[in-house]
């Protein structure tokens, strides 16, 4: 079954149409890398999946549930689709450990001890076992983003959405985040990643999607597309990001 299914999805902000009848199916285990020029609708496409943006036309199913199915179903979808933001968006009043334990306690009804044990394990997994008691303001950008990944993983999602997870980071901090994402992909997590990291797309991606003006204009294998981009606009785009 498709984990994500776009059926002629349309989205507009006022009179600006951002997604134009997008059709897209994503299966379990796929690592989809989403690229495209600024303003082409990549973030919007991602944010429609967990209903941070509401679609205007068509339908969008996540794990078989429509994003239009109502509030409680939307919450179920959000628990199935973890999200990692460009700006990390950690809760500043909570320590790293509390950030990670928060979701399970609030939405999965986990006990404090249970959630803390799991959060500690997740922090270890992203290489931050010894940073649990630090506040976000006491962590580097790369560390904050890894905590954010652990926070999203804590609610045990079936799917992870990444919106430019390394764009706000200094180059030398990017690899630590990319490494965590790679190991996640290797464990079989279904992922949709908006990024300009072409090395990541080539090495980890199983599928590359190029968006232009609210449409998917190229969709295929990353290795093939990156070594021989036939679409002229994709070729031009790739020259700019390299």
């Amino acid at each position: 079954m498709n984990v994500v299914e776009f059926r002629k999805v349309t989205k507009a902000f006022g009179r600006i149409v951002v997604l134009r009848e997008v059709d897209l199916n994503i299966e379990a285990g796929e690592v989809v890398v989403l690229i495209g020029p600024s303003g082409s609708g990549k973030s919007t496409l991602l944010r429609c999946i967990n209903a941070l943006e509401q679609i205007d036309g068509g339908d969008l199913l996540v794990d078989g549930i429509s994003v239009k199915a109502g509030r409680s179903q939307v919450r179920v979808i959000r628990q199935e689709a973890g999200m990692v933001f460009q700006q990390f968006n950690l809760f500043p009043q909570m320590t790293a450990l509390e950030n990670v334990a928060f979701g399970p306690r609030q939405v999965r009804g986990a006990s404090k001890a249970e959630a803390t044990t799991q959060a500690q394990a997740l922090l270890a997994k992203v290489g931050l076992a010894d940073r649990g008691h630090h506040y976000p303001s006491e962590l580097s950008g790369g560390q904050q983003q890894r905590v954010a990944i652990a926070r999203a993983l804590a609610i045990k999602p079936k799917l992870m959405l990444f919106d430019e997870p390394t764009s706000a980071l200094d180059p030398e901090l990017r690899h630590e985040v990319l490494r965590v994402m790679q190991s996640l992909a290797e464990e079989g997590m279904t992922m949709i990643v908006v990024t300009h990291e072409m090395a990541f797309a080539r090495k980890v991606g199983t599928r590359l999607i190029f968006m232009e003006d609210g449409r998917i204009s190229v969709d295929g294998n990353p290795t093939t597309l990156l070594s021989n981009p036939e679409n002229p606009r994709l070729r031009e785009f790739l020259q700019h990001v390299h």
Partner: protein
Amino acid sequence: MDFDWTVIADALPALLNGARLTILIALAGLVGGLVVGFIAGLMRAYGNTPLSAIAFGYIELIRGTPIVVQVMFIYFALPVLAEVRVNPMTAAITAIVVNAGAYIAEIVRGAFLSVHKGLKEAGLALGLPMWKVLVYVIGPVAFRRMIPPLGNQFIVSLKDTSLFIVIGVGELTRQGQEIMAANFRAVEIWTAVAVLYLIMTGTLTLILRITEKRMRIL
């Protein structure tokens, strides 16, 4: 002229009684004002159009009229309009609740809306309902930002109680006025009254400073 300390010593019990009432009115009024202010502020920030409009109307009505007029209305006009008798103390407390509530609503609204929207999205993205996002994610950050302006409002409201002299509540200023009318020792009495107000506002400032220091502003 010579400053006669015995005047103050004689007046002090009555003045302290007045100060006690001042504190009582301010405290009860501000507790109620916080409740009203949080509700109205959240209605303004997150309510649908009718809820937001109601809160807006209330805030503008109160901010656009003097507190003396408000307390006169509650004490003298309300009984005529609705046939409810209110004693001066109730009228005074209600006036602070209603008045401070409007200003606190704006403080609450501003603080909640000043929180980066990424935090709200991160909370929602975990699958939390909006009310939990407000209580656990945005609220704690917003609350820290509210402390300085709330402190300011507390001090204003405490001093505003002196205006209730117009409905005869025996608060500090009224006590001073009555003693003065009997002994004509304006300098001693008004100095003592001013010092008592300073002690109250000073204590309040100190409490707020400590609270602020204890909480990291985020």
